[in-house]
């Protein structure tokens, strides 16, 4: 988690201090992760959560602006992706009817990438998720 925050801090500081001159290794790895994450998003998530991450009122919750998506509970996020969701739960004051797909076949890297993507796309700004974090979370979920 701290590692994730430091990435963002590095990103922000580098963005302001050395914008043109050099692209750090961290930056390029984040960029690559975001791109791979977008591919996963289009295949697995876009149909329900929409291109703009806005979801569908009362059926599929929005990811853009969602407190859970931006939040620090990465274990929760990994669990939702791997296990899907069938319970009636309130999310930011609203209920959603559709079941969430389970995605146990996604690799740790794919889950890290798609989480990093949804946490840093649209209006969202949150720490990146690493494959190591997903691996640790996946072990707890089983």
């Amino acid at each position, binding site marked *: 988690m701290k590692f994730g925050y430091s990435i963002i801090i590095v990103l922000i500081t580098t963005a302001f201090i050395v914008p043109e001159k050099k692209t750090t290794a961290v930056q390029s790895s984040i960029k690559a992760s975001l791109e791979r994450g977008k591919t996963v998003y289009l295949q697995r998530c876009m*149909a329900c959560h929409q291109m703009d991450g*806005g979801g*569908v009122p009362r059926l599929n919750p929005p990811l853009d602006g969602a407190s859970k998506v931006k939040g620090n509970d990465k274990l929760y996020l990994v669990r939702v992706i791997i296990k899907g969701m069938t319970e009636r739960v309130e999310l930011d004051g609203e209920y959603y*009817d*559709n079941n969430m*797909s389970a995605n146990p076949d996604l690799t740790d890297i794919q889950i890290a990438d798609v989480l990093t993507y949804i946490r840093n796309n649209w209006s969202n700004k949150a720490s990146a998720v690493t494959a190591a974090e997903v691996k640790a979370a996946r072990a707890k979920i089983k």
Partner: protein
Amino acid sequence: MKKRVLFSLSIICAAINFVAANDSTIATAKKIVADPVNAGLKTPAGFSASVVADNLGRARHIVATEQGGLYVKLERLKEGKGIVYLKDADGDGKMEITKTFANYYGTGIAIKKGYLYASSDQDVFRYKLDDKGDVIDTENPQRIVKGLWDKRQHASKSLALDDAGNIYVNIGAPSNSCQEIDRTKGSKGMSPCPILDSAGGIWQFKVDQADQGYHNGVRYATGLRNVVGLDWNKQENKLYVTMHGRDMLYTLYPDKFDTTVSAELPSETLYAINKGDNAGWPYVYYDHFQQKKIVSPEYGGDGKKTSSENFIDPLVAFPAHMGPNALLFYTGNQFPEKYKQGAFIAFHGSWNRSPLPQEGYYVVFVPFKNGKPSGKWEVFADGFSGTGIVKNPRDAQHRPCGLTQGPDGSLYVSDDVKGTIYKISYPSK
């Protein structure tokens, strides 16, 4: 003398009041002029639309009383109430909230032979109406059905009634295509689909028995994924339903379908239902391009393979994912001849046609003759979304959800985004 003056004054006043009252009646009747913006809707020539009520909450299905009142079922409680009763008491063409009641949310609402019927997502209740169309006892309805499946997905219980003392209740399947794990890539379709024992069909109950349930209800039709629109056609003495077709062909089977096919298939379907019919969900879906029932990929389909099983064919197949949320056979005399006995369908509007633009968000008309479509369907009222192209359903300002016919033959449409009630009329010249 003084008394006399007072007396005659009071007579004069009464007379003035009387004239004034009459005048105001005439004046208010005249006040109902056509809405210059046609309620933001595009309707066929000669029709006019107006907003009769607004901001009611999530207005799902609606039903008009014989006296011209309107009951509205809300999907989420507003100030603790789930039914709104509207009346135009002062005759100004706008309806006012007369009463709110019912401590449950839901979709279904209907009137038959002096009773109002309304559903939560598990139960069906009925309330006796008086000769004004008012509910006599809002606090103590009779619960006629209880304990139906409410598993979040497709949980709304739409209602229709025949003239023989039966009520038909949709029990939507809490599933996309009856996979072992719902909506999950690589998860197999269950065979036989166990959901069909308790959902994915229309159940028939008696109107006047308390606390019926699965044990004494009749599974009237099966293989219907989720029916939100249904109506009893009196001319044919038959049930008709509109079904929401399955989602996610591409997301679940990217090796068999691309995003365009997934956006345009399967069809949304309108069926005439006879007792015992099976429409084929989850085993097949309808493809209006091939005009065939195609085996679902969860059951070995590849987009082409057809089924030899005895599933019914739809009467009309609409573009995919548009969400037919209400069905109404027009029995009034106000609209022109071509509309008589025809079907109006409120399309809630799609969400899973991305990356293509969304579709629907309008009311469609299908001409009928002798219980069968007699021509092509057409958009009857459009413009509910308030935007040109809907990219995401949350951009739509209004979404049509319920339909009812007023005693004068006007058509009412409900919207479940802002709770707007539209009235569409064909004024005589």
